[in-house]
């Protein structure tokens, strides 16, 4: 169950982050990195939803590409407003996910991982060879920054070029991430989350008590793809360009690593994992050529010492003792 005080705590935290950080952080560069971490977290949450039903999804990079290109094409070619385009991007990614999922969600384990990984590469190649429609290797540039969003003549969101664009981008990333977290939190806390965990532990058993596993796998994968498309759509507007290599196989793999690092048992897991790893490497620029090596070592260390992710520290013995002495309740545990 989600208790309402937890929701309030989350909303206040989100508000403090979204409003507070731009006041404190003046560096455009750091603000940009934080915004990218938030954007990646949204995509990672999508991967987390498929992990929740027991599928290692290495296709999130592809869904981010799809979302990015939808925003790019719709805004530059057809003059569609970014606000409409990003929603459409989410739904088109979801539709692609549903169609793909119908074919591949029967697969499990390493087979599912391999085929989604191939899908990431296939989408990159398709965009690379898409001719004028996708812009080939150069992709699509000069994507306009988000314009004004108004309803009945009242401005709800000002045009980004009329305000500090970097701050506006940061705020947008924070708001989208907060919405994505709320979506995933609600799913994992309601009965659907319980069914997802059931499927993760035994699809056969879940099916034997009447769960339509085919349907629910599609639902989980579809929502995951939706988040991939939203995240990709955000990056298209924030970076004002898309290109086939924008998201690739290494990104798809990293996104799943972020989930494992944070802890797949927690809704906050993918967010914590993304911020830790992504920010860690941004601030350790000198080590970037060792990134994959470091990721690998980190994963091994994780499997040995923290198999349930960083957030499982909150349930470690010494913290629990501390808590019980101080009379605090346990951390929220998803599903």
């Amino acid at each position, binding site marked *: 169950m989600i208790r309402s005080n937890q929701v309030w705590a989350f909303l206040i935290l989100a508000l403090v982050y979204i409003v507070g950080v731009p006041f404190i952080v003046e560096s455009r560069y750091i603000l940009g990195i934080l915004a990218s971490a938030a954007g990646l977290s949204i995509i990672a949450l999508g991967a987390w939803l498929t992990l929740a039903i027991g599928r290692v999804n290495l296709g999130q990079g592809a869904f981010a590409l799809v979302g990015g290109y939808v925003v790019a094409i719709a805004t530059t070619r057809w003059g569609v407003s970014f606000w409409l385009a990003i929603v459409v991007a989410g739904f088109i990614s979801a539709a692609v996910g549903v169609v793909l999922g119908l074919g591949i969600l029967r697969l499990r384990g390493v087979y599912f991982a391999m085929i989604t990984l191939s899908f990431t590469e296939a989408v990159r190649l398709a965009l690379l060879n898409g001719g004028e429609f996708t812009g080939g290797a150069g992709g699509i540039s000069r994507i306009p920054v988000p314009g004004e969003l108004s309803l009945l003549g009242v401005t709800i969101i000002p045009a980004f070029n009329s305000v500090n664009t970097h701050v506006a981008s940061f705020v947008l990333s924070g708001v989208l991430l907060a919405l994505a977290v709320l979506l995933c939190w*609600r*799913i994992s806390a*309601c*009965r*659907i989350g*319980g*069914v997802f*965990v*059931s499927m993760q*532990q*035994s699809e*056969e*058993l*879940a*099916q*034997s*008590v*009447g*769960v*339509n*596993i*085919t349907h629910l796998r599609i*639902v989980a994968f579809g929502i995951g793809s939706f988040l991939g498309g939203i995240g990709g759509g955000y990056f298209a507007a924030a970076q004002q360009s898309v290109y086939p290599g924008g998201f690739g196989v290494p990104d798809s793999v990293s996104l799943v690593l972020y989930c494992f690092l944070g802890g797949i048992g927690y809704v906050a897991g993918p967010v914590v994992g993304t911020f830790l790893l992504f920010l860690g490497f941004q601030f350790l620029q000198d080590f970037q050529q060792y990134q994959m090596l470091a990721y690998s070592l980190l994963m091994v260390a994780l499997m040995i010492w923290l198999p349930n992710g960083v957030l499982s520290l909150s349930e470690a013995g010494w913290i629990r003792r501390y808590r019980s002495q101080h009379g605090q309740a346990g951390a929220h545990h998803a599903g």
Partner: protein
Amino acid sequence: MQVEIPVTSGQPPRDPILTVENVSKRFGGLTAVGNVSFKVKEGEIFAIIGPNGAGKSTLFKLITSALRPTEGEIVFRGENVTGLSPHLVAAKGMVRTFQETTIFRDMTVIEATRNAHYVTGQAGLLGIFFNSKAARQDLADIDASTDRILELLELRSVARERSKNLPQGRLRALGMAMALAAHPKLLLLDEPFAGMNSDETDQMIGIVRRIRESGVTVMLVEHDMPAVMRLSDRIVVINFGKKIAEGVPEEIKTSQAVIDAYLGEEDEELGI
């Protein structure tokens, strides 16, 4: 051994809840189930026995649609359910437990039982997500039902234990709890007494009887002959996939074909 008078005697014949008609299942060249037919009456405890590898579990999987029969028909409450998706068969009221220990490992007993209440709810996915009135009612119903099931299966005392930490006897009960969560009309138990000592078996026999009293028809596959004889109203015996006998426990105990089958487990000639 104590012999019980079957509840069916002296009562007018009831409609069959389940009709298995000429059902066969072949795996490549192997006929796991060959042309088996029988009827299960509403409210009875109906056992299927037979030597190892006779095809009992396969038959349960065929009945609940986990496997599709090569030939034959499964009719449940007057409706042909052959080849229907397993989740739909469960929703119609036929649920099986697993011979292997199949559980939701990381859930507590109460969580696993709650989560197994999937088909009983009225709310759709969106209703659940937005916590509609129907969804709130479902939650209340599920809590009440979970309570009742844990009580029935004597699992109250371990409700907060993680499933994977339960002893074998309780795992069987948990498997049954999850099956009952789908509110079946026909419950199929695959070796409910496996790995139990005689006290646990006695407890489980009591539980199965109470499940039947609550209005659920029970089918079971079991190797523990004394338990089967005590518990069942009627028994079907299969060997090498074929039905070789059907009757009340006394008839089965004295059937020459059954005695031969069990004595000559290695001898194909006696497989009939």
